């Protein structure tokens, strides 16, 4: 039996039926991870010993009949979720020596639910990147073709799930960092509504945009994990105090009468023609399921990338001010004085893209520029948010491509930051408006996966998971594996 090809839901059944143990499953995946590491570099840290201990404990719970729905199931955490006693690097030299003294709320919840952490996934430094090339630990490679990027910033999580090194992985999305790598690696990537999942213990990048979520092979697995990780947390002042619906219970609801809005602005010259064909084919499947399609225009949406590249760097420059070489993280050698200590610790500890964003943010927040950049961007953000609100008055969900093109070669876009930033042209809007969105595999172009994006209204996770799951019942794109990892 090839356990690695099973979904989280199937593995849960197998564990409960005692067809295999959590320890067997964990050992098998650790071996796959270790074998893949020289080729994919999807991990910063593999937590072999802790995983084996946790799996053994899970097996005892399963035997005693005291197991929960996720007990004994292996998973991976993106290396920006704090994990007690385990290095949390955030892909940066700055935090290379940082051992987290506590668990992020998401990690604590999933640990309490009985999941087994296999390791911490590689990522763009401080989640700033769309290709996983800014990591201090080197780029992650795409399992479909090792010369290509996996996307970013959650490239390690997406590549690990695509290569079936883990059934699920946590991830975070500030401008597309769950959905874009999920699309480029041919897996399912779910970004919940802002405030749905606690940000406590997530290393902050842009606090009004950051949101934790999940990468998985199926929408059903995303529902299983989201149900366990979502919910109110008094430790996060932006966490929303609303009950968490049973996302699994509504997965099979029929789609007859579902009103789908096609994002007109996304079907434009920038969209690769083959990608567009795959998206149109997916939309035809939805029509067959009884949904109706209509075009919806969000006229301010094309301003989302410039608005984002003011708001996100501004928040990043404030958040990353905490890295001072004094309390934790990297410190330069032999500082002359306190100013030298600050400047060289930060100058040496941060990579090129992180420094670029800190400086961009510092400039837009500096005296004389605040109104022209930051305030203007927050007004444009209001316009974009209002566009979405109007659209959700007419339709239930919005659909379109996740990315303009399939995965691109490593090194192809590193010399021009704006070309790199435009990878997130279709995903940033949902972050600016705080909306939930998912990317699911919907076919291939030239042997590379294409992602369909579904955006819902605030707290519409159940609906988009339902729409994604029904599509996955009709198609098998999500079940395809890269040849080297079958």
């Amino acid at each position, binding site marked *: 039996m090839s356990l690695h090809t099973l979904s989280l839901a199937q593995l849960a059944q197998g564990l409960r039926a005692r067809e295999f143990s959590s320890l067997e499953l964990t050992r098998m995946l650790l071996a796959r991870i270790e074998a893949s590491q020289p080729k994919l570099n999807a991990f910063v840290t593999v937590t072999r010993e802790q995983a084996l201990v946790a799996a053994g404990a899970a097996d005892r719970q399963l035997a005693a009949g005291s197991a929960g729905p996720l007990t004994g199931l292996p998973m991976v955490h993106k290396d920006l979720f704090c994990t007690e006693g385990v290095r949390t690097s955030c892909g940066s030299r700055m935090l290379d020596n940082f051992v987290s003294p506590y668990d992020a709320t998401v990690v604590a919840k999933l640990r309490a639910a009985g999941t087994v952490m296999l390791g911490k996934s590689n990522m763009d430094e401080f989640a700033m990147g769309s290709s996983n090339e800014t990591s201090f630990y080197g780029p992650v490679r795409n399992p479909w073709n090792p010369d290509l990027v996996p996307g970013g910033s959650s490239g390690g999580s997406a590549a690990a799930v695509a290569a079936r090194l883990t059934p699920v992985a946590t991830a975070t999305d500030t401008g597309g960092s769950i959905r874009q790598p999920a699309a480029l690696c041919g897996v399912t990537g779910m970004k919940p509504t802002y405030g749905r999942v606690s940000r406590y213990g997530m290393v902050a990048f842009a606090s009004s945009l950051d949101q934790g979520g999940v990468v998985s092979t199926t929408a059903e697995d995303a529902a299983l994990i989201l149900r366990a990780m979502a919910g109110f947390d*008094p430790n996060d*002042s932006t966490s929303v105090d609303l009950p968490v619906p049973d996302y699994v219970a509504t997965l099979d609801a029929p789609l007859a009468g579902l009103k789908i809005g096609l994002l007109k602005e996304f079907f434009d*010259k*920038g969209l690769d023609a083959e990608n567009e064909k795959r998206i149109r084919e997916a939309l035809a499947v939805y029509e067959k399921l009884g949904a109706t399609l209509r075009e919806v225009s969000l006229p301010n949406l094309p301003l989302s990338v410039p608005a984002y590249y003011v708001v996100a760097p501004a928040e990043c420059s404030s958040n990353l001010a905490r890295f*001072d070489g004094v*309390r934790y993280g990297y410190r330069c050698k032999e500082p002359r004085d306190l100013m030298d200590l600050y400047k060289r610790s930060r100058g040496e500890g941060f990579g090129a893209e992180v*420094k670029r964003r800190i*400086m961009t943010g510092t400039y837009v927040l500096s005296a004389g520029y605040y109104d022209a950049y930051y305030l203007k961007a927050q007004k444009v953000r*209001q316009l974009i948010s209002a566009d979405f609100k109007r659209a959700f008055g007419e339709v239930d969900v919005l659909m379109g491509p996740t990315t303009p093109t399939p995965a691109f070669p490593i090194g192809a876009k590193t010399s021009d930051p704006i070309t790199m930033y435009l990878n997130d042209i279709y995903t940033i809007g949902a972050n600016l408006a705080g909306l939930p969105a998912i990317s699911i595999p919907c076919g291939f172009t030239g042997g590379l996966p294409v992602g369909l994006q579904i955006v819902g209204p605030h707290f519409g996770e159940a609906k988009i998971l339902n729409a994604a799951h029904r599509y996955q019942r009709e198609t098998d794109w999500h079940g395809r594996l890269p040849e080297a990892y079958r």
Partner: protein
Amino acid sequence: MYDFALFFAVTSAHSRTFCSGNSMALTREQIENIAHLARLALAPAEIPVYQQSLSAIFEFVGELDRADTARVQPMAHPLEGLSQRLREDRVTETDHHERDQANAPQVAAGLYLVPKVIE
């Protein structure tokens, strides 16, 4: 009305600016000043790189001027109507300075050490 095609056009224009490194560039002094405000030591070779890329970024985000925002309130929170929650004013934290200081570069007697600031 704006469209994405415009931004791809803008990108190629940027690529030209970016490669030729001419016009619109922030000065070396401006980059040094921003880096100072951000407390970042830059190597001399990094400065021209940031001159070019930051200039391109500010030109790119200048597209925001195309939007009429005269009567628009800036967005304060992604979830409208949900205001920032306040908690009860009571002590909830326990002392864990020893645990937390295990990550500090230099500590003595429970204090973080830095170079001398007062002669």
